[in-house]
């Protein structure tokens, strides 16, 4: 029988790996999600997660490690979202809908053609951070570090373009570049979050901690701090509860995020 005492729990290698990868992913999603939510781009995470479904199916179909295929494919998907919006004169949400439909339908067709990897594909739909491998931990930490570095270096341009895009343009900030950067970083973040919460729930990790923080924060730095805090607590306690009660980690993480959101609503109402 597994000893579930608190200290023994942290000695398990798979728990340590889950905490490291989950912690970095939580940090990345909370930071990036704040900009996405405030720029009304949060649905792009949802659309790209659907593209990642098709990309994973593509990887499984050709026998290549799915997450390696998913990074470039989802980045291409994000490029198409921007281009369809720009060239076909449709609103952003409509172009997200088009690209995500291509992702899902492509994935379903590939799954049907192969007839062999439906079980594997299902594991990516809902994630399983407790089964994360050492390679996947390195993959998650590296990509998280890359995304966080970009957010750090472009922090003030992102701040300016998010707070007042028209003013940012008048001061010479290239807001189109900022939009492309955010979309590409979202593509990378969606892929690295798949192992934690799965394709179906990736957007929740991008949206919920940020909207919770925005309910009660006074100042942008405080909002970022609270978003990161809610995200880390959701992931860490999600992993612990998942292990203790034998329930799926991804769904538990998301439900905890929802609870934090409800608590911030109550706090705001009482305050």
């Amino acid at each position, binding site marked *: 029988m597994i000893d579930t005492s608190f200290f023994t729990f942290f000695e398990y290698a798979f728990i340590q790996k889950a905490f490291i990868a989950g912690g970095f992913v939580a940090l990345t999603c909370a930071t990036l999600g704040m900009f996405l939510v405030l720029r009304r781009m949060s649905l792009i995470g949802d659309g790209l997660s659907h593209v990642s479904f098709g990309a994973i199916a593509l990887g499984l179909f050709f026998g290549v490690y799915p997450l390696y295929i998913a990074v470039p494919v989802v980045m291409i998907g994000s490029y198409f979202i921007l281009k369809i919006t720009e060239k076909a004169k449709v609103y952003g949400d409509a172009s997200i809908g088009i690209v995500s439909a291509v992702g899902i339908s492509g994935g379903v067709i590939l799954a049907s053609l192969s007839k062999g990897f439906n079980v594997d594909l299902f594991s990516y739909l809902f994630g399983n951070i407790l089964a994360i491998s050492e390679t996947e931990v390195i993959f998650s930490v590296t990509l998280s570090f890359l995304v966080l570095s970009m957010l750090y270096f472009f922090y*003030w341009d992102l701040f*300016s373009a998010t707070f007042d895009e028209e003013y940012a343009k008048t001061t010479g900030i290239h807001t189109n570049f900022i939009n492309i950067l955010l979309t590409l970083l979202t593509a990378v973040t969606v892929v690295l979050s798949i192992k934690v919460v799965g394709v179906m729930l990736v957007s929740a990790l991008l949206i919920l901690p940020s909207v919770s923080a925005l309910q009660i924060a006074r100042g942008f730095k405080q909002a970022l701090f609270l978003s990161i805090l809610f995200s880390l607590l959701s992931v860490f306690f999600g992993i612990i509860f998942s292990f203790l009660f034998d329930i799926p980690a991804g769904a538990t993480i998301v439900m905890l995020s929802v609870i934090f959101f409800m608590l911030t609503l109550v706090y705001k109402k009482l305050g």
Partner: protein
Amino acid sequence: MNILSVENLGVRYEQSIALDGVTFSVEQGDFVGIAGPNGAGKTTLIKAIFGLIPSFSGAVSLFGEAQKKFAKWQSIGYLPQKNVSVNPLFPAVVEEVVLLGLISEKSFPKKVTKADKKAVREILEELGIGDLRKKSFTELSGGQYQRVLLARALVQKPELLIFDEPSTALDPQSRDGFFELLLELNQKKGITILFITHDTSYIQRYASKILYLDRKVMYFGTVENFFQKKEFRDSKHQYHIHYSHSND
């Protein structure tokens, strides 16, 4: 010194012409009010000056340089219409908002220094809103809001200030105070000012020149001459003149 020169500017939205053959120039120290009926192209003109929308004809030059080659955007301060461009959910504090005025001139990677924070403190003190530095921007009153955005524009140390309806959100008393402040900036610091307003009484009281637009330039010259001209007291322009008198 020529600050802004607009020559034969034409802007089109889909099939409708928003601006046609607009020509005027602004010299250093001018205080220019832009007026005209709704849909006259006032905001479009400002956007075209900044290159935010494309033009189908003409040219804009800033500080003697063609707009497309112009890089010293830091020397132009801009105050947009209230509630038009600022993200209402963004939880910024006043200090962060004003710091944005210093960001564009920085080289990559952009960092805020102690000197930047000092410059922000000083400009807020100068505008009499030093106590708002750590206050949430979304909690400000109309007057405070406009002063903070003015601080954001002034911290850039601009030579030209452009305002789009700066007084819409203000009560009459705050409106007068705001324009007195602009007059002081124009007269004491020599900052050239260009502002859009529906209320021509403020142009009459504070500006040195008026640009009256109705997709084309109907009048550009001194304020005194404008208010003496019969054609601007007649027809559709009358409303604006009457409107301005009713607010006196």
